[in-house]
């Protein structure tokens, strides 16, 4: 959940690509100034929000904490800030011949901020901790592909699954083995083609010995191995990071100190940027987006970039609401939505109309997978609906959580559907996100409802498997298609990334036939900054690239 309100738009947090390649580790020292890069050193303030959990990488699934975690932890893999392409960070090499047995060599000479070495054990222990059910880590499920995950989970029923016989059988994952100080092996229970790509997600961060001695204290003052270290976390006010002088990696930052100032409201953060009281805001309020006001307020001090976020409209499972069971009805509704006009009028063009279910920023993206079904064509839509025998229900409903800005676009979408199909459509506000999600999770919500997805790692697989695979954790529409599942399994077994991506694309194409959800648009992030800073870049995850930010 990002920000308390926006949040809501997106799902699991992102593995935030922190620092761009090629900027050097910033060890030049002193204040050197260059025309393009600005000077080294100094301090900046950026907009922050309240972390929802203690700052432990495996227990952080939202962006507020994630932005901090990603600045203070380095992972095996780093995602390029521009392209989201994965590249080795702490990993010397990740090798496999069969997509099931991986040998990972860790670079030597890296240390945590407390001086202890980053070794193979730092990773294995951290991943075991994340997976072990009784530790109740919110991103423990990222360890699911690793062999032995099932035995580390509690199996009991009722209030406490870890009570009595339900207690987890094993404390560690059988698939993880330390070979020597800097080598370990990973065995997955099924073939996984993109394991290396996943390893850049924050849940796969290494943890120092100090964490296991006192996890609670660690959560308040984490000790990381990233380009920055945490100096202070003033609850609900600010989080202060300073340069980690023990950092030896390639993705260091230029500024010495970063303060996340916690704002309740994006308007006040924006006004602070206008008055040069805040250096960067990663969210431009709706009031400043109107007629591109932010562009005249902050000339040459704003940027916009597509990020790995997609907004969709999901149909309730057929057993909950049979009125939408026919794929033709679903396709007709999708074709009745004038995405471009809604985007222009409601979002001032800050979205990109979707042509498929996968974000364009990831590896394996193929354009126009949804084809004509995501193209506005009221005549065809109407014809398709007639062919399907018309809409049987009373009216089409589109539910949204009313505590965030979804009312306008859902109503516009409904109007578009109503005009094209001649069937009444109403946007239904549900009081807040918590209620909204419980109704969906309990399978009580009928009709259509808004869903969003923010990628965890930049792979086409992340937009398909967790959402549309039979029984997947975020499969809100209970979509199940054996052919789709089979393609995913085959793709995971491909050792050639290009061949794997091709299979995933074939699977995505199946979605157009069944239409489990309607792709609406891809997200873009807009940022603005004060006239004190330069080199502000947005990563594919919609976060600030701290390796390039510098004072003028």
């Amino acid at each position, binding site marked *: *959940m990002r920000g*308390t309100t926006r*949040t*809501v738009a*997106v799902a*699991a*947090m992102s593995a935030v690509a922190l620092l761009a390649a090629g900027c050097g580790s910033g060890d030049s020292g002193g204040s050197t100034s260059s025309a393009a890069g600005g000077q080294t050193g100094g301090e900046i303030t950026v907009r922050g929000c*309240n*972390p*929802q*959990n*203690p700052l432990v990488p495996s227990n952080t*699934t939202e962006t507020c904490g994630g932005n901090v975690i990603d600045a203070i932890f380095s992972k095996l893999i780093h995602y390029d800030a521009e392209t989201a392409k994965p590249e080795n960070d702490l990993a010397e090499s990740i090798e496999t011949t069969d997509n099931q047995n991986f040998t990972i060599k860790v670079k030597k000479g890296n240390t945590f901020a407390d001086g202890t070495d980053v070794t193979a054990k730092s990773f294995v222990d951290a991943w075991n901790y994340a997976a072990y*059910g*009784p530790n*109740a*880590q*919110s991103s*423990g*499920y990222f360890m699911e592909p690793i062999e032995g995950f099932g035995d580390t*989970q*509690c199996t009991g029923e009722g*209030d*406490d*699954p*870890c009570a009595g016989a339900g207690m987890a059988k094993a404390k560690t994952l059988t698939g993880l083995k330390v070979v020597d100080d800097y080598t370990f092996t990973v065995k997955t229970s099924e073939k996984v083609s993109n394991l290396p790509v996943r390893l850049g997600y924050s849940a796969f961060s290494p943890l120092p010995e100090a964490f296991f001695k006192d996890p609670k204290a660690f*959560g308040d003052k984490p000790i990381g191995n990233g380009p920055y270290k945490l100096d202070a976390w*003033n*609850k*609900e*006010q*600010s989080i202060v990071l300073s340069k980690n002088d023990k950092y030896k990696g390639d993705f260091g930052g230029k500024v010495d100190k970063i303060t996340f*100032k916690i*704002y*309740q*409201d994006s308007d*006040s*953060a924006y*006004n*602070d940027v*206008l*008055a040069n*009281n805040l250096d960067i805001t990663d969210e431009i309020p709706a009031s400043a987006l109107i007629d591109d006001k932010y562009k005249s307020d902050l000339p040459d001090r704003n940027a916009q970039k597509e990020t790995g976020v997609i907004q969709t409209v999901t149909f309730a499972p057929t057993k909950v609401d049979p009125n939408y069971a026919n794929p033709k009805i679903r396709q007709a509704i999708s074709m009745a939505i004038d995405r471009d006009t809604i985007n222009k009028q409601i979002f001032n063009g800050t979205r990109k109309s979707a042509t498929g279910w996968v974000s364009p920023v990831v590896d394996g993206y193929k354009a126009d997978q949804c084809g004509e079904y995501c193209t506005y064509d009221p005549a065809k839509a109407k014809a398709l609906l007639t062919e399907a025998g018309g809409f049987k229900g009373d009216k089409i409903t589109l539910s949204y959580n009313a*505590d965030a800005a979804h009312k306008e676009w859902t109503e516009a979408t409904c109007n578009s559907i109503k005009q094209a199909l001649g069937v009444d459509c109403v946007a239904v506000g549900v*009081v*807040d*996100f*918590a*209620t*909204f*999600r*419980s109704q969906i*999770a309990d399978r009580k919500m009928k009709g259509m409802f808004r*869903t*969003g*997805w*923010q990628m965890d790692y930049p792979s086409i697989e992340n937009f398909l498997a967790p959402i549309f695979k039979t029984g997947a*954790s*975020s499969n*809100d529409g209970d979509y199940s298609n054996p052919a789709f599942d089979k393609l995913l399994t085959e793709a995971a077994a491909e050792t050639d990334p290009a061949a794997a991506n091709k299979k995933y694309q074939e699977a995505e194409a199946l979605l157009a036939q069944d239409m489990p959800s309607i792709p609406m648009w891809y997200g873009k992030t807009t940022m603005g900054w004060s006239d004190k800073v330069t080199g502000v870049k947005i990563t594919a995850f919609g976060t600030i690239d701290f390796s390039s930010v510098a004072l003028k």
Partner: protein
Amino acid sequence: MGTYVLRRLLQMIPVILGATFLIFAMVFALPGDPLAGKCGERPCSPAYAAQFREKYNLNDPLLVQYGKYVGKLAQGDLGQTYNNISVADQLKLRYPVTAKLALLAILIETVIGIAAGVLTGIRKGGFLDNLVLVSTLIVISIPIFVIGGLAQYFLGVKLGLFPVTVTSSDPTVYQLLLPAIVLGSLSVAYVSRLTRTNLVENLRSDYVRTAVAKGLTQRRAIGIHALRNSLIPVVTFIGFDFGALLGGAIVTESIFNIPGVGGYIFRSIRSRDGVSVVGAVTVLVIVYLVVNLLVDLIYGLLDPRITHD
């Protein structure tokens, strides 16, 4: 007087217990699961959910939950928010900020409001009277987020006279001045109108005529006799307003990013964080009761006919 105060203090205990229970029950009755939005748009893992429910007693029935809460409350433990932050620490951090802001706003509304009320009251129908009438009418009719937003943009961003946001948990008077003016502006209007009407009324009364006939100066007749009697409804209003301001000014706090209790309560309600809501509101109930008691005691000072024995 002493017994009166003691009696009032003892009466507070059942009120506090009743209020906490009502709030507890209301938060409990809200639809939605606090865990539903906790892990983004996917369900939390069963182990995480179980630990979370266990920790916050979410599996217990309402009365048991309430019992456990009051048990802790009696020991001075306000519990922890769902974000794992101590409620007591948060309140300790936020109440001084809100109190500072409230006091400043009350000071502004009292001084300006009463002064304007007196000036307009003694020259009823004059230019100043009409000016205040029109300007207060304008202030009353504009919603506070418009006043706040405009003040922040023009006085803060454009002219740079005031800081744009506060953010600090130990703000200076200068930092809080603009939010306090915004917050007090609405009440200034009410206070000045209340003072004016009451003063006009009392100026016509017999005792003022007597005082003037006895040869008292205009200043003394109005200042001591008429004004003091006119202030009773004004003090009631200010007392009520002070209590309300201590509950946090959600809109103003969010415009100026002030880390006060208003935003805290609002966010806690939205995230179904019952423990935080009940903790903050319990303190609020106590504050209200104390302020009410103070107002009642001030009545006695203003009008000797009102006694508390």
